[in-house]
C-alpha cells in the first residue's frame, strides 16, 4: 500500500487499491477459515485454491507480479490439481478423522495466541526491535521485477538455485524409486518393437502339401 501511496498517484487510485486490498483480504481470511472448517475435504482443497488466488491478487497489489503469477501457476495450476485428484480418489471421511479433534483444541488456541502475541509484538510494541514503519522504496519507471528476479537468481543466488534444482531431481528419483515396480506378469507395449516389426515376423507363409485322397 505504502509504496503505491508514495508514488504520488491520484487519490482515487489509492482508494481503489485500498478497497481491493480489503476485499481480497476478507476473501482470503474467509477461505482460509473454510479450509479448516469445511466438512468435505474437496471443499477444503478448493478453499485453499481460493486462498492462493487471493494471496496472489494481494501480491499483485504490492507490485510483486512475478511471484503472484508463479504462485497461481505452480500451486493452483499444478500442486492443487494433483491434490484434488488424490483427495477425490481417496474419498476421505473427515468426520471420522475429526473425532476427538476438540481434545487438542487448547493446543491450537495456545499456538494461535502465541502467534497473535508475536504479531502484536512486532507491529505495535516494537518489542522485537523490528523497524516496521519503513515500506519498500518506490521502484523507478520501467522497473520489471521479473527481470530483476532473473538477474539475482542467475547471478547472486546461482548456487542455491542450482542446488534447489538438484533437490527437485532427488525428489523425482526418490518418488520413482519408491513407487515404480515391475510386477511379475505385467504386460506392456514395447513401442519400438511394434514399430520395427515386419510382415514376415507376423505372417509365415507355408506351403502345405495337399492331402492325397486315400
Amino acid at each position, binding site marked *: 500500500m505504502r509504496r503505491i501511496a508514495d508514488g504520488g498517484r491520484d487519490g482515487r487510485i489509492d482508494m481503489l487499491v485500498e478497497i481491493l486490498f480489503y476485499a481480497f483480504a476478507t476473501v482470503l481470511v474467509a477461505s482460509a477459515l473454510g479450509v479448516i472448517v469445511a466438512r468435505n475435504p474437496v471443499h477444503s482443497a478448493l478453499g485453499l485454491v481460493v486462498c492462493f488466488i487471493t494471496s496472489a491478487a494481494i501480491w499483485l497489489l504490492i507490485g510483486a507480479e512475478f511471484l503472484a503469477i508463479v504462485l497461481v501457476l505452480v500451486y493452483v495450476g499444478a500442486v492443487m490439481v494433483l491434490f484434488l485428484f488424490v483427495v477425490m480418489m481417496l474419498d476421505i471421511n473427515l468426520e471420522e478423522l475429526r473425532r476427538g479433534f476438540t481434545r487438542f483444541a487448547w493446543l491450537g488456541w495456545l499456538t494461535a495466541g502465541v502467534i497473535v502475541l508475536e504479531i502484536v*509484538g512486532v507491529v505495535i510494541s516494537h*518489542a*522485537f*526491535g*523490528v523497524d516496521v514503519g519503513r515500506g519498500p522504496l518506490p521502484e523507478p519507471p520501467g522497473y520489471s521485477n521479473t527481470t530483476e528476479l532473473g538477474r539475482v537468481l542467475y*547471478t*547472486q*543466488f*546461482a*548456487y*542455491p538455485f*542450482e*542446488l*534447489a534444482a*538438484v*533437490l527437485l*531431481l*532427488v*525428489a523425482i*528419483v*526418490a518418488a*520413482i*524409486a*519408491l*513407487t515404480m*515396480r515391475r510386477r511379475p506378469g505385467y504386460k506392456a507395449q514395447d513401442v519400438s518393437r511394434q514399430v520395427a516389426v515386419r510382415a514376415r515376423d507376423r505372417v509365415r507363409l507355408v506351403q502345405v502339401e495337399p492331402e492325397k485322397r486315400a
Partner: protein
Amino acid sequence: MLEPTSWAGLAPAVAEIYLAIAACVILMVDVFAGRRWPRLTPSLTLLALALGVALLVLFGQVSGRVVLFDGLYVEDPLGYVLKLAGFLFLAFALLYSRAYMQLRSIQRGEYDVLALTALLGIFVLVSANSLLTVYIGVELLALSVYAIIAFDRDNAVAAEAAMKYFVLSAIASGALLYGMSLIYGLTGTLRLDELVARLSDPLTPGVILGLAFVVVAVCFKFGAVPFHMWLPDVYQGAPTSMTLFLSSVPQIAYFSLALRLLTYGLDGAVREWTVMLTPIAVLTLIVGNVVAIVQSNLKRMLAYSTIGNVGFILLGFVTGTRAGYSAALYYTLVYVVMVLGSFGVILLASRKGFEAEELDDYRGLYARDPLLALAMMALMFSTAGVPPFVGFWAKLRIIQELWATSHLALVIIAASVSVIGAFYYLRVVKLLYFDAPPAELPTAAQPSAVRLALAVNALAVIVLGVLPGPLLDLCARLLR
C-alpha cells in the same frame, strides 16, 4: 558484487560441482544400462568417489578461508578435510552394503544416486556460509535419507521407519526455518559471517526465540534426547545397509550444521546456546547409555549408543571454545569410523534370509568367523573407550576440554556414563568370545575385498588409537 565467472575461480567448489554432475551421469547410465548390467552402477559409484577424491586433492585445496558464490559458500581447510572424509566414509559404507543389498535384491541404481545426492547435501552443509545454503543442504540430505530408509519398499517396517523420520524431520525442518526467519528478520542478513557482527549483547527476545528453534532443529538432526524418539526405530527398522549409511556419513553434516550455524553464525549468542545445550547433552548421555543396556537387538543397541555418543559431541560444543569444538570434530570423525565398522560387521554377519540383528546371533562368533569377531572386538573396545583404542582419546579430549572450561559436574557425568556404557559394549565382546555358538548357524561367505575393507577399518581404530597425535593435531589446527 559479482565475482568474475571463471572456472578457475570456482575450483574450491570442485567437490560440489563434480558430485552434482557425477550423480546425473550415474543416474543416466543406470537408466539405460542398469537393468542389463546390474553391477555396473555400484562399481561406477565407487569409481566416481575415487575420482572425486582425486579432483578434490588436485584442485580443491585451499590454504585459508575462500568465500564464493556471492558469500553463500565458504571453503576452508576444515571443509576440505571433512569433504575428503565424506568421500572416504561413503565409499566404505557403499562397499559394505553391496553384497547385503544384492542378496536381498534391493540393489537398484537409484540407491547409489541417492547416496551421492545425500553426500552433496552433506558437502553443502559443510561449506555453508548462509542460512539459505544451510537450509538447502539440510533438505537435500534429509530428502535423500528418507528415500534411502524406505528404499526396500516391500518392507513394511522400513516404510514405517521412513514415515516416522519423514514426519518428525519435516517438523524439525520447519523449526529450523522458523528460527532462521526470525534471526534473518531481526538482523537483516542471511550470511553467517555477517551475522556474527550483527548479534550484539544484549540479545533481543526475538533472536533468542529464533535461536531456541535453531537449537531444537540441530538437536533433532543429531538425535539428542528430547528429540531422539525417531532414532532407535529408524535404525532398527531400516535395512541394515541403510542404517549403516545413515548412522555414519551424515554425522559429518550434523557436526557441520552445529559448527557453522551455532559457532560461526551465532557466535554472539554463545552464552545462550550453551545454556540451552547443556541439559540436552546431559540427558542425551544418560538416556542413551542407560537405555542401551536393556536392548537385546544389536541395531537398536547401537542406536542408543549413537545417542550416547551424540551426547559427547554436544558436550564438545557446550564448552564454547575452539578447543572444545575441535574435540567434538575429533570425536565425530572417530565415531564415524567406529560406527561404520560396527554396522559393517552386522552386514557381513548376515546372509540371505537371515539378519544378524539380535545379540544372540553373535554368540560364539569367534568360533565361526575369527576375523569378524576380532574386528568387532576392536570396534566395541574402542566405542567403549578402552585405552589403547581410538575411542579412548576421543572421550578423553572431550573430558579434558570440559575440565579446561571448568565444567566439573559435566566431567563427572561424562566419566560415569562412560563406565555404564562400557558395560554393554563389553557384553557384546563376551558374547563373541565366551559363549557357545548356537549349532544351526552357518558361516558367512563374503567377498574378500569387503573383508579386507573391514580389516582396514578395524585396524584404523587400533592404529589411530596407538598413534593419536596426527589426527588430534589436524583437528586442533583446522579449528584454530
